[in-house]
């Protein structure tokens, strides 16, 4: 028997999509029957009270979590999001309901053995509710009490070789696409780079030392499966410099209808017979492709590497062999001065272990932003305030036309004094010799 009636939430048990309410109710029951015999360290009815509190929010259309919450573990300045409900007498099970962020393995692969161990720990010391995963990538453990935080951390690090993720004005938990694990488009080892840089910058992740949050994301190609360009201050996106590899026989097989276009992604609807001209050549953004005499040609010099032709014909077209990555910087959500996608900083950079070239750019940007960034100013906003030129300067990068979508339209151009013959120190009396008042 449920502790609180939840007539509104009950209506979210219908419909085909997995119901979080059904899952929570089942989990709430199992905390009472406790089939695995855990000596539960947070209230047995924590999920009942979570449902009760949520039902109250559904009734009155507002949240019932108090503002903020500052909790954590010694040695770190982040990793735990403190939370207290604003109706602790009614719902004592969620009076404390802190979130613990756990660092996830790159690519989000797990073994059942490991995952079950984590579940055991969380059933024992937490609510048993999770997010798999947080938007930034962490495993999210939703709901425990303050006295359990150090206990959880001790067991995580001592028994599971598992650290916390990031929160606060620091390097947040980096994330990547699945890269070379299971994708033929991966231009570099996203998982290894993600893992390596996460370890390299552990101090920046656990101890806030930045003006504001800073995120890394690693995409293996411009398809953006981890959305690096939109969701990380420092976005590393794989690419190549040489020719797209063409298997002409496979191209013919696509034309002949033997292989479905786009790996069969559109199979649920009749789009007609595959038309190479219409579906690939004419959609190429730079119009650098042609198909004549049964032969597909790509003018590499004019290719943007947008991935469209490769996406449509993955068995015929493959990424080049001279691989690396582009670095783009500054993406952020709207607050404060508007949303940004990352802007191209380094068109092509080697992306091989131990990733020294990439680290050099990261550290140059950090050295600058940590000094110049204002309180709670994302890198993208610092760029807007101080100019993109400044980022190029601190990274020692020569401006190239690839850095812009278009040149400026206004003529309000700054020059450095030493670029101008004679400098800026001038004598009005000298000027007056030629120009009377």
């Amino acid at each position, binding site marked *: 028997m449920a502790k609180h009636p939840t007539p509104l939430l009950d209506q979210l048990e219908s419909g085909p999509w997995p119901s979080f309410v059904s899952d929570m109710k089942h989990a709430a029951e199992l905390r009472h029957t406790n089939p695995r015999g855990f000596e539960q360290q947070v209230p047995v009815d924590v999920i009942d009270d979570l449902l009760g509190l949520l039902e109250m929010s559904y009734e009155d259309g507002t949240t019932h979590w108090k503002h903020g919450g500052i909790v954590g573990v010694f040695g770190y300045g982040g990793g735990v999001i403190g939370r207290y409900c604003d109706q602790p007498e009614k719902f004592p099970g969620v009076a404390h309901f802190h979130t613990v962020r756990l660092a996830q393995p790159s690519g989000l692969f797990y073994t059942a053995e490991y995952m079950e161990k984590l579940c055991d720990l969380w059933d024992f010391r937490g609510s048993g509710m999770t997010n798999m995963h947080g938007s930034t990538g962490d495993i999210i453990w939703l709901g425990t009490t303050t006295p359990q935080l150090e206990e959880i951390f001790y067991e995580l690090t001592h028994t599971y070789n598992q650290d916390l993720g990031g929160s606060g004005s620091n390097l947040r938990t980096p994330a990547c696409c699945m890269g070379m694990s299971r994708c033929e488009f991966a231009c570099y080892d996203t998982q290894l780079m993600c893992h390596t840089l996460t370890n390299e910058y552990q101090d920046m992740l656990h101890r806030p030392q930045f003006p504001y949050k800073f995120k890394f994301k690693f995409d293996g190609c411009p398809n953006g499966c981890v959305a690096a360009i939109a969701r990380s201050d420092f976005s590393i996106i794989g690419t190549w410099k040489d020719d797209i590899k063409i298997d002409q026989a496979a191209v013919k097989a696509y034309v002949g209808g033997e292989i479905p276009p786009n790996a069969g992604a559109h199979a649920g609807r009749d789009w007609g017979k595959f038309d190479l001209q219409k*579906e690939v050549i004419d959609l190429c953004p730079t119009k650098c492709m042609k198909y004549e005499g049964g032969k597909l040609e790509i003018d590499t010099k004019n290719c943007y590497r947008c991935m469209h032709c490769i996406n449509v014909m993955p068995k015929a077209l493959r990424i080049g062999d001279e691989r690396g990555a582009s670095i783009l910087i500054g993406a952020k959500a709207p607050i404060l001065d508007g949303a940004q996608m990352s802007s191209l900083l380094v068109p092509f950079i080697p992306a091989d272990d131990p990733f020294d070239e990439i680290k050099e750019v990261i550290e140059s940007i950090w050295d600058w932003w940590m000094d110049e960034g204002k309180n709670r100013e994302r890198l993208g906003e610092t760029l807007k305030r101080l100019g993109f030129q400044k980022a190029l300067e601190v990274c020692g990068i020569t401006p190239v036309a690839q850095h812009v979508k278009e040149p400026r339209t206004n003529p309000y151009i700054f020059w450095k004094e030493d670029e101008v013959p004679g400098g800026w120190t001038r004598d009005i009396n000298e000027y007056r010799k030629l120009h009377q008042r």
Partner: protein
Amino acid sequence: MAFVSSGYNPAKPMENRISDIGPRFFKDFLPPVLEKNYGKWVSHEILEPGLLVHEAESGDKVYTVRAGTARLVSTEYIREICEIAKKYADGYMRWTTRNNIEFMTTSLETAKALKADLNGRKFAAGSYKFPVGGTGASISNIVHTQGWIHCHTPATDASGTVKVIMDELFEEFTNMRMPAIVRVAVACCLNMCGACHCSDLAVVGFHRKPPIVDHEYLDNMCEIPLAIASCPTGALKPGKHDLGDKKVNTILVNQERCMYCGNCYTMCPSLPLSDKEGDGVIIMVGGKVSNRISMPKFSKVAVAFIPNEPPRWPTLAKVCKKIIEVYAAEANKYERLGDWAERIGWESFFEKCELDFTHHLIDDFRDPAYFTWRQSTNFKF
């Protein structure tokens, strides 16, 4: 509920402390076929909704079955995933960047049996536990946020709105009949944690009333300059408030300049603004992150306000479905929702989707707003 120590000694907190060890190494968790063929994949194919095959240089094949999840899941649910992984996939599993679950096997027969098994598992009340799909030109899982389950600044709920939208669009998760993938995202406030600013269809929690000032406590709870600086429109200034027996330092809100973003509340607990009638959602459309054909795009506001209607948000679900239906009927193959709207023109988008165009949709935020107006005679009647 007796306290059980882990071995941590609160009297000597820094003793035996392990720190800065980071995440577990991903290769420890890779299925053997993936580890063997790491970086050596040559092609892939979607055999049917939710079922992929990847082929390596070695000729090895791996079949992947993808299933939807609620993201907010219990350990019981994760244990069931583990049980499935052990039964069909040698105990390996992974999650996707859209919070779907994937199981991998080297046998097509096993993959098909797995798919059938997953589609057969339901919660007691009837919803699927692991609906298979989310591949190709479909509507995959909704990237979403905390909402009323855990956050203090939301203007709507996330888990609930996601559930009702996915129920409405469920057929599109298990099919591949869209012109291109349709990414849907939900964020419960303008902080837009996640992907709302860059999704084909996005739902964002929105307030419509300025904050209530808790003058009595404000100066004790807040660093006033931080709250002042948090306002994008300069609607806040420091001031005094007369409580009767004393004057206190506080913050004065210029209500004409406030657009209810809630960022001052993020900084200052004495400026709450949530409200049953005031709060609701906006709908944004046309964003994308991939570089395929066109550049990445921001999503644009298409619907200025839909009220919160818990538990099933019927208006929201209906409007989302309508936009998707019109897009699916009208867009060309490979055309993302934003590509389609730009090709036909936004005036046609509003007409076809039968959406009201109101003054709220015209940008008025600083200099860049000008660039969103129409400096041209090119338009459709």
